[in-house]
């Protein structure tokens, strides 16, 4: 049976650990974590940053939001009037997370209407903000901004200042 889980000091040269590196490393079925390649890892605590050949910078992770009742939830609803924003409270997992919103409003009026659940920036440590701005149609141009409702979730960020990482 191959050794698949290493918690402690790795000296696997294929992972760049020849000098020894402490962490948690898990390899795929049938692959030895002490000699596998980066492509054969399914989990790694290495935070390699922008180094060439880096495999991962962390795990895709949902940030809990706090509901109006004070519970931890994965999604919260919001309502915003035209041009306004809504601030939702998150669990503090550090600043720089990504706000992912959707608009659920059904436009029943016989007029041109639009609304967004976009975030003008990254979330702060405890607040995720969505902004309801107007949208533009490729034919008609700007569409009248109206109030909308929707829901958001928040995804853990990694580096809010880097254009690429």
């Amino acid at each position, binding site marked *: 049976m191959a050794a*698949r*889980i290493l*918690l402690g000091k790795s000296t696997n040269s294929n992972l760049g650990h020849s000098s020894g590196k402490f962490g*948690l490393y*898990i*390899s*795929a*079925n*049938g692959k030895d974590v002490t000699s*596998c*390649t980066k*492509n*054969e*890892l*399914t*989990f790694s605590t290495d935070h390699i940053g*922008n180094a*060439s*050949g880096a*495999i*991962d*910078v*962390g*795990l*895709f*992770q949902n940030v809990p939001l706090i509901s109006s009742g004070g519970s931890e939830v994965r999604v919260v609803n919001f309502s915003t009037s035209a041009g306004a924003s809504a601030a939702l409270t998150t669990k503090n997992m550090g600043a720089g997370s*990504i*706000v*992912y*919103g*959707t*608009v659920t*409003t059904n*436009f029943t009026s*016989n007029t*041109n*209407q*639009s*609304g*967004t*659940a*976009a*975030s*003008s*920036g990254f979330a702060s440590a405890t607040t995720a903000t969505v902004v309801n*701005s107007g*949208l533009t*149609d*490729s*034919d*008609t141009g700007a*569409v009248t901004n109206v109030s*909308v409702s929707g829901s958001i979730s928040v*995804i853990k960020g*990694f580096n*809010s200042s*880097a*254009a*690429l*990482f």
Partner: protein
Amino acid sequence: MTARVLLGSDGSTYALKVARKGDNVLSPSSPLLYDSTRSYWQGQVYAGGQASSTSSVNWAATKGSLSIGGTNVIPLIFATDNQRGKYKTIASVTSGLDGDDFREVSNFATFETTTTSLNGVQFSNKNPSLSGATNGEYMGGTRTSTGLKFLVLKIPCAFGFMSNTYMQPGTS
């Protein structure tokens, strides 16, 4: 307090398992947060970035393309921008629509991904009296993405790559 983390033998193999808050890792009632016995990609983030305004980002410029099994794959990319929204427009347009036609587009922050780039795309004109892609219809026209934020996941997600060769680590 429930036992949420198991590191060691689970009775059949050595593993690391993590249960959800309030769930027992030895007899979980919900899917585990992490299970090393499942030998598939675990949502590792390979790269990411942001742009204030762009129609195309070379997401591989820093890290290089994502190579799995010796092949550069098209990855699953989580992306959002200022067009996370919905609009409805009715007739009176210069092309594509006429008369009583209308279109309602939901959450149209749409993107095209390749082995190196993330491109903003939009829905093109749809004239019901015409048919076929040569009339400039369907989705695929480029658009400028503003307030773009994205994460590239170490998960293949494209025709030709969603097979055991690429979806299971270390099989080739």
